[in-house]
């Protein structure tokens, strides 16, 4: 007797919900072992993580702060993944957007925010989009593997960035009577270039609105426009697309421009809304985490927003575990990893069923 995975012809909604609930439960049960090993009551730990991340003001707003870049990145990635193109370099596109907005932010005089803020986001989008184009063209023309090219372009930009903040972009900062130079960070962007925050929180609301709108527009682009139709055909059946005269180059390049551009917007939000200056540790991995949330959330905006919000909550909850239970970062990463592993593995059982054969 052996077991064979057979693709389900139809995914029933009941299955979908059952599998997802089950995978979360199994994940929590597995992670319990880790907490038990540390002499903690897992139920108590889960209760406090949940309460802290989603039922306190700080937890909620911090989860939203983490959701903003994740939502932008994953909306774009969900789109480009539908064309069958694996953009692994969103972190680089995010950085491109942040760097472009920095150059504009330190140069621009004090203008009306109605002009300034859109300009910052516009250059961020364009820079991210430009950084996304070469892998698309290389794949379409020379069949260069996009997993490699997108990732490598991230590294290229990362080291250019490191060079700039250790050299030409180094700040001289005046504090009181003294000027401090030589430190590996850039100027703080002028106040008028900083994004407004919801009072009392770190939520830079312009980026939040843009992120939500973007996730809806991506859905609309994919399902209601001829370009979206072409992208879907290219993704599901490249041969058929070719036979129908759909240009692979055009479809994939457009998708990559949107994906890179949205990641670029996330970079603008991180720089102008959160960090306000570059340090060597500017990047915190949203470009990579967005791959997971795009995979889980798909292209439906509601499901994307919720997935990213929950993922943000997971990050905030991880900090909470460290603060309250003084657990090492390894346990926190393991906890996050176990949850993601089971949730992703659950997707398999939604698409396939196991059959016993004699």
């Amino acid at each position, binding site marked *: 007797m052996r077991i064979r995975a057979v693709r389900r012809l139809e995914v029933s909604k009941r299955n*979908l919900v059952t599998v997802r609930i089950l995978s979360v439960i199994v994940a929590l049960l597995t992670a319990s072992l880790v907490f038990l090993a540390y002499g903690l009551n897992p139920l108590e730990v889960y209760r406090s993580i949940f309460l802290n991340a989603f039922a306190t003001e700080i937890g909620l707003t911090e989860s939203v702060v983490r959701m903003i870049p994740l939502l932008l990145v994953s909306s774009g990635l969900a789109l480009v993944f539908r064309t069958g193109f694996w953009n692994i370099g969103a972190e680089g596109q995010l950085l491109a957007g942040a760097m472009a907005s920095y150059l504009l932010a330190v140069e621009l005089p004090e203008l009306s925010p109605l002009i300034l803020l859109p300009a910052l986001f516009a250059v961020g989008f364009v820079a991210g989009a430009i950084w996304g184009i070469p892998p698309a063209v290389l794949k379409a023309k020379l069949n260069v593997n996009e997993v490699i090219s997108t990732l490598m372009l991230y590294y290229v930009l990362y080291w250019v960035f*490191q060079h700039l903040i250790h050299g030409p972009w180094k700040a001289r900062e005046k*504090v009181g009577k003294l000027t401090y130079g030589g430190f590996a960070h850039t100027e703080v962007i002028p106040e008028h270039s900083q994004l407004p925050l919801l009072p009392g929180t770190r939520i830079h609301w312009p980026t939040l609105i843009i992120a939500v709108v973007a996730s809806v527009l991506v859905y609309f682009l994919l399902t209601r426009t001829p370009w979206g139709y072409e992208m879907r055909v290219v993704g599901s059946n490249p041969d058929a697309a070719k036979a129908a005269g759909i240009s692979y180059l055009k479809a994939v390049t457009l998708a990559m421009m949107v994906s890179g551009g949205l990641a670029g917007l996330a970079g603008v939000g991180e720089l102008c809304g959160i960090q306000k200056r570059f340090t060597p540790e500017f990047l915190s991995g949203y470009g990579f985490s967005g791959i997971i949330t795009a995979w889980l959330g798909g292209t439906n905006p509601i499901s994307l927003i919720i997935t990213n919000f929950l993922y943000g909550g997971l990050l905030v909850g991880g900090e909470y575990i460290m603060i309250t239970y003084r657990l090492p970062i390894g346990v926190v990463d393991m906890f996050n990893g176990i949850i993601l592993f089971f949730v992703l593995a659950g997707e398999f059982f939604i698409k396939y069923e196991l059959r016993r054969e004699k």
Partner: protein
Amino acid sequence: MTSTQWAALSIILLLVGVALGYLFAPTTTVTVTQTKTVGQAGQAGTTTVTVTKTISPEGKKIKAAFIYVGPIGDIGWTYAHHQAKEMVDKKYDWLETTHVESVAPADAAGVIEQLISQGYDVIFTTSFDFMDPTLEEAKKHPDKIFWHCAGYKRAPNMGTYFADFYQIYYLNGLMAGALSKTKKIGYVAAHLIPEVVRHINAFALGVKEVCADCKVYVREIGAWYDPTKARQAAESLISEGVDVLAFTEDSPAVVQVAQEHYQKGERVLAFGHYSPMEKFGKDVCVSGQLVHWEKIYDDILSKIYAGSYSTDNLEDVDYWWKLKEGSVELGCTFNQPINPKFVNELKSVKVQETVQLPNGTILENPDVYTLVMARLIQMGAIWTGSKWIYANDETFDPFTGPIYDNNGNLKVLPGQRIGHDELWSMQWWVENVVGPPLGG
């Protein structure tokens, strides 16, 4: 893969969570106003003092939180802060501490918010890159106390602190100059920020004092923690003839490289950095730099407990502690300033100079071992042979002129010392350093 069910489920879970949250909400602390009548010694009459404070049922307690940039297991920077925190935590029963490791600068403010919402009232942020978020949070929470390590921004409720190694690097330089046969000494640097430049220069001044024609070759690796790059940089320096290595990087990689060469029959020596690294290079680790953050944490927290530090008087409080405060220590392992294997060799090298100790004793042309011990005394840390004793004065500083930069310009006039502010933004090399150009 899209589904409204997924959405509905999550919303339900969320609502359940919120409901649970209100159900199990933690009890709040009590705010009391005490009116005390205090009699003053030797004075007629009394003063009435009204104190309003928030107390927990157990009595006065301080809840302090530490934010680390790296993982505790780095055996370097974060590890040293954590060890110090644990020591102080154990020492005082009025102190409760927690910590968060591997925090990115982007998340620092969010972590501080979480800590404050959980009742922590003293926050230590232990990395330069946390400077702006710490200041932002300090302004947002004027009733909490903040301490930032290694930065230059302060506020009424935010002080700064740092344990500086430059005197130790100078002492290491004296030994390096005596022990190098090739007259080429290597330095593996993390980032060439003023702190590291200052340390390399102090090291090079020590080298020059003992060996006028020795040069210090610098390699920058662009990371605080990167054992692979540190190893490559060390190997590349050795292949160019370097036989003594010092470094700034949070792993023992450079010491390990030296030990490997030693075992292949090639003498390469090293100075440990930050934590005891003797076990990684028992035949090659001459001395090194060790830190005692607990001295600073102890002082700060005791003063907060005693009430001398509060939320309105930290604007000018900057701990810049060195040898005489005991916050840094010379050695590749604790309580052993120089590896005994190298003592005889150091005693065989004489230096042509006169040194005057604080008690008036004059040393003519001392050997390097005696010179190191004399300089320690002059900088306020006396090694008795079994333990350290501290004196509260410094009669010597490595950065005393004349000092030339490596383009031949006289940077410090004879007899003058470089002050704190200039050391804190140092962007030039002393004359015997061969290093990459530094931007002003």
